[in-house]
């Protein structure tokens, strides 16, 4: 069975030991705190899931450059470190540039994260994206209006769901076997393959959380097969 993705140090992955960079960002987080004069703020996650974070952005209205960014986190070392590194990566960039920085780029910048912890890293990236999207909406920067809900958009969103055993997203692992959308009801079929069934619940919860947040979704049904 394949474990961990290319850029991960397999020793670190198996033992759930963090890299030096993760520890550095975790113990000395950059851009942590509250941005008093934030132009936009977004919060994601929940205490019950074990991580929750808030990101605030200060944006230049003319150039759309991110002038300042700050975050607060109730989360594990991996979540705090990713938030720290991703806020560093987007500071001074334009919104367009910032949107291209995904969670895996942040994980790579940290020299890798344990597979089971990848989803904490996704949360940090997602919160940032939410803040950007919200700002764009507030200032009429979205081109072509709202995206329509489609199987294709949902598949894109599912790229953010990580198989905790492998540390790779479920789309790349070809675990998504079918997506149907009908009147706001989304049905998703997932194949667990060789993945331990104990992860079923957490994968289901993640999918529901992500897809429910998409515009026009009324209900999400996730089915599993081996």
């Amino acid at each position, binding site marked *: 069975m394949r474990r961990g993705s290319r850029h991960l140090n397999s020793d670190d992955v198996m033992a759930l030991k963090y890299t030096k960079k993760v520890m550095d960002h975790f113990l000395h987080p950059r851009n942590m705190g509250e941005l008093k004069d934030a132009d936009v703020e977004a*919060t994601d996650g929940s205490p019950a899931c074990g991580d929750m974070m808030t990101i605030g952005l200060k944006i230049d209205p003319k150039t759309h450059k991110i002038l300042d960014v700050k975050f607060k986190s109730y989360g594990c070392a991996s979540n705090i470190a990713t938030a720290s590194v991703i806020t560093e990566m987007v500071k001074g960039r334009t919104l367009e540039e910032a949107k291209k920085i995904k969670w895996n780029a942040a994980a790579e910048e940290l020299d890798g994260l344990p597979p089971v912890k990848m989803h904490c890293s996704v949360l940090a990236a997602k919160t940032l994206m939410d803040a950007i999207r919200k700002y764009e909406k507030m200032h009429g920067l979205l081109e072509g209006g709202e995206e329509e809900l489609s199987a294709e958009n949902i598949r894109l969103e599912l790229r953010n769901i990580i198989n905790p055993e492998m540390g790779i997203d479920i789309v790349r692992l070809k675990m998504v076997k079918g997506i149907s959308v009908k009147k706001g009801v989304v049905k998703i079929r997932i194949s667990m393959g060789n993945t331990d069934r104990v992860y079923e619940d957490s994968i289901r919860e993640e999918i529901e959380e992500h897809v429910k947040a998409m515009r026009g979704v009324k209900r999400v049904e996730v089915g599993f097969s081996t």
Partner: protein
Amino acid sequence: MKVYMDNSATTRMLSEVVEAMQPHFTEKYGNPSSLHYMGIEAERAVDESRAKLAECINAEPYEIIFTGSATEANNLAIVGACHAGRKKIITSEIEHSSVGKVIRNMERRGFETVFIGVDEEGFVDLKELEKKVDGNTALVSIIHANHEIGTIQNLEAIGKMCKEKEVLFHSDASQSFTKVPIDVKKFGVDLLTLNSHKIHGPKGVGALYVRKEVKLEKQVHGGMQERNWRAGTENVAGMVGFAKAAEIGVREMKRNVAKMQKLRNALVEGLLRIENAQLNGPESDDKRLCNIANITFNYVEGEALLMRLSEQGICVSTGSACSSKSLQPSHVLKALGLKHEQAHGSLRFSLSKFNSSEEVNYVIKMVEKEVAELRKLSAYAPGKKAGYYEEREQAFE
């Protein structure tokens, strides 16, 4: 300062134990199955260790099977005992995974399983248990002292009930051994698991007590070792070390327990002075292990706190060491009725006789400091429920 307070995960070996093991690596390294004098010497060491361990729990030497770990002993007890036609296994919701997962797995072999719930202190509901035990029950398995919160179950009552109903009774005593007196006859257990590395003995060895009338099905096939109960050349040094640690642990029990109790209570008192902190599991000394304190620090994520304490030289656990890799909050804390966010914010401090009051004071000071730091940075704070932020955002829009 370096402080090890993770003794429920594993312990430092006693120097007496290391000394007792030493000759079996380089001088007395014979195979106990060999007929020559080296083999006889090794066999004698195994026999002596078996007798010593048996004495510690009021058993006969031939009732002890050495295994490669407590996990293996639990597997042998459960899988080995469930072979005689009865199709139901009863256990609790707060077992160690080496019992809980094995029993779950038996469902695939057609067994019905029952997981009995616990009260907020972690005590198994005895009435509920008795109701479920019937003529189709192959085995009842209830952990003696819990590995996360320390609750000590009333084995005597369960043993008596199982005897009346003629059902086999197993208990995992990995955490209680040398901290609570163990008497297999008084407890009325048929099978009992012991762990070496939790009592200052070596890793790689465990033991299962099997009452002489009980018939188990062999699980590891091959040679005739352990009176044909478990194949594989004996871990002679491990057995010698285990027995030595048990002997010393039982001999010093009273003194060690008093010391750990005192330190643990001072630790709890200090930690509960931190705002929004709560003790999980029983409060009174006679209901729980002398060395475990499981505490929730609300509004803090447990792993982040653990990693920060580690930077300060302090070793503790979030819940059970074995389960800190999974995303799910501890099943033990959930069984007590804790909310997910309370379970996520909990740490387990577990002491040994090697800890000191200076260490306790240092730990209190550092936990206080790190909890305050993390709370300062936390997106989740007292009085602000999850919805708070969204409401504020809407007001902003």
